[in-house]
């Protein structure tokens, strides 16, 4: 198994430059690559099973085993998952959840990043008395279980008339995205040389002037990191979606769970798997496109758990 991966290694060295080449098939290398390949296969297995299952017809699923590739490829399950699968009385498939999730995610990402970046900027460059206290509370909020805050938020949303509505959920995502994003932006802005800030102050720029003319243009990478973090985080949310929205406005994850775990009817595993892939597709695309930035984002956003 390890040979296949090691083959390009020997092809890559063609000149006598660089350090002394090591033996390529040493026991150590075989162990390292062998283990990594086995682990990688294990990690890929569920994705493979999902894809394969979603392309089979139900008769084939009942007969064969889940690992065998489909004998006859059919896209019927995908169509059904997207447009016809039922949750309760609605039979218009996951598409409804998809658009709900889009409508939830887009404003939540924009609003949470706008607010958190300004917060981070105020904390990094315009420190005022008591700022650290609020910030510490905010960071604690990233760790403490959401369950202790769920119900008070229900009451607040009900008071302002947003309970069960999409703007309410957007507000909730903004609130719970705030700790980690504020930390992210604060740390980034702190690393920007102070002289720039001081020079702008001398030139008479104010709070917003410095933010829009200096800080914002200088920190586009961190905005991208924050976006990756928020898009995947909000798209994948289940708990807030199920609490703060109604069946009509359920996000995709909640609808997916309702489709797959519904007790009525015959289980259509191929449709279920197609629906599961569809739900995972957006974060997966974000992940594969963003590459290293995603790693940076999660290293900073790991506290979201």
């Amino acid at each position, binding site marked *: 198994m390890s040979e296949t991966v090691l083959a390009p290694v020997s092809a890559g060295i063609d000149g006598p430059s660089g350090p002394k080449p090591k033996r390529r098939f040493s026991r150590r290398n075989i162990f390292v690559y062998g283990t990594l390949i086995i682990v990688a296969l294990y990690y890929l297995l569920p994705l493979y099973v999902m894809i394969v299952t979603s392309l089979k017809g139900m008769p084939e699923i009942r007969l064969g085993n889940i690992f065998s590739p489909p004998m006859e490829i059919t896209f019927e399950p995908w169509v059904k998952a997207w447009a016809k699968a039922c949750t309760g009385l609605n039979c218009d498939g996951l598409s409804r959840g998809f658009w709900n999730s889009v409508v939830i995610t887009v404003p939540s990402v924009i609003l949470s990043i706008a607010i958190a970046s300004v917060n981070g900027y105020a904390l990094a460059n315009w420190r005022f008395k008591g700022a650290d206290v609020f910030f510490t509370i905010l960071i604690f909020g990233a760790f403490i279980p959401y369950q202790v805050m769920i119900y008070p938020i229900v009451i607040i949303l009900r008071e302002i008339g947003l309970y069960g509505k999409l703007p309410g959920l957007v507000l909730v995502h903004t609130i719970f995205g705030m700790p980690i994003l504020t930390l992210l932006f604060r740390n980034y802005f702190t690393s920007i040389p102070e002289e720039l800030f001081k020079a702008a102050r001398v030139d008479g720029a104010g709070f917003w002037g410095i933010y829009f003319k200096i800080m914002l243009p200088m920190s586009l990478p961190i905005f991208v990191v924050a976006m990756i973090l928020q898009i995947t985080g909000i798209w994948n949310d289940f708990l807030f979606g199920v609490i703060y929205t109604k069946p009509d406005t359920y996000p995709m994850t909640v609808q997916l769970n309702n489709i797959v775990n519904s007790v009525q009817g015959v289980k259509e595993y191929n449709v279920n798997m197609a629906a599961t892939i569809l*739900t995972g597709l957006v974060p997966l695309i974000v992940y594969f496109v963003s590459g290293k930035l995603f790693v940076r984002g999660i290293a900073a956003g790991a506290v979201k758990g």
Partner: protein
Amino acid sequence: MLTGKAQDGVMTTQERPNQLFRNISAKIAALPMIATALVVFLGGTLWTIFYSFTNSKLLPRLKFVGLDQYERLWTTNRWLISIENLLIYGVLSLIFSLVIGFVLAALLDQKIRFENTFRTILLYPFALSFVVTGLVWQWVLNPDFGIQKVLRDMGWTSLEFDPLYNPEIVIYGILIAGLWQGTGLIMCLMLAGLRGIDEDIWKAARVDGIPMWKTYLFIIIPMMRGVFITTLVIIASGIVRIYDLVVAQTSGGPGIASEVPAKYVYDAMFTKQNLAQGFAGSTMMLLSVLIILIPWAYLEFGGRKRV
């Protein structure tokens, strides 16, 4: 993490008579943060704790019953099972994800080819939601079609591998899924820690003829104490919250064999109209996180001032 540069110089440039109006745009800009911190995080938490001493049912009511809710909580079988599950899942998930995450990071740190490819593969489950994770593994572990059937078809007819339908081992079925989803992240954190270690340490260890595994065990790991502790806090506070994975994979079943505290709290609040029970449960969850969090915060931030 939390210590920033003090900007005293900036603040004193703008002396105004009224303290409150100094730096006013910054204060206005920080209002959302202040409101979130005070009203939602602090206020909400205190509110929940406060109402956990009442007998609120469908709606919050101020009729105090002392510690009754907690007494009921700790005599309810479902809560006890939830706690037991959380302990098993938590301890095993901590151990396995730290060990596997570290070993994988160490393997990736061997200056190998295709490091990015391997990292991409090992981390992709983390991009997926717990709901997706739970549903995939529900399918892979399905006794009639999944791994059990495949192995039986291969001739191992007596094999019993049915974690999701066996109350004794269902929590391990969830653990398999949770580890699949989360170890990639731990690996990345560990890898960042390993990259932060001075190359000279390795050279010195090699010169002294210390074998690789000993270098890791006795030199590198002790040096990475900070990374380990931070990772531990991150995993632990995530574990206490575990909810979607269980809902998607088993819905708490079979029976109530895979219930977890977060699900108990949700059900009490939103399906059983037993608000105060939910508040008491969530307060217990908060307590368990604080037990982890406070010593860590003390070590991390209290200790730094002395240095």
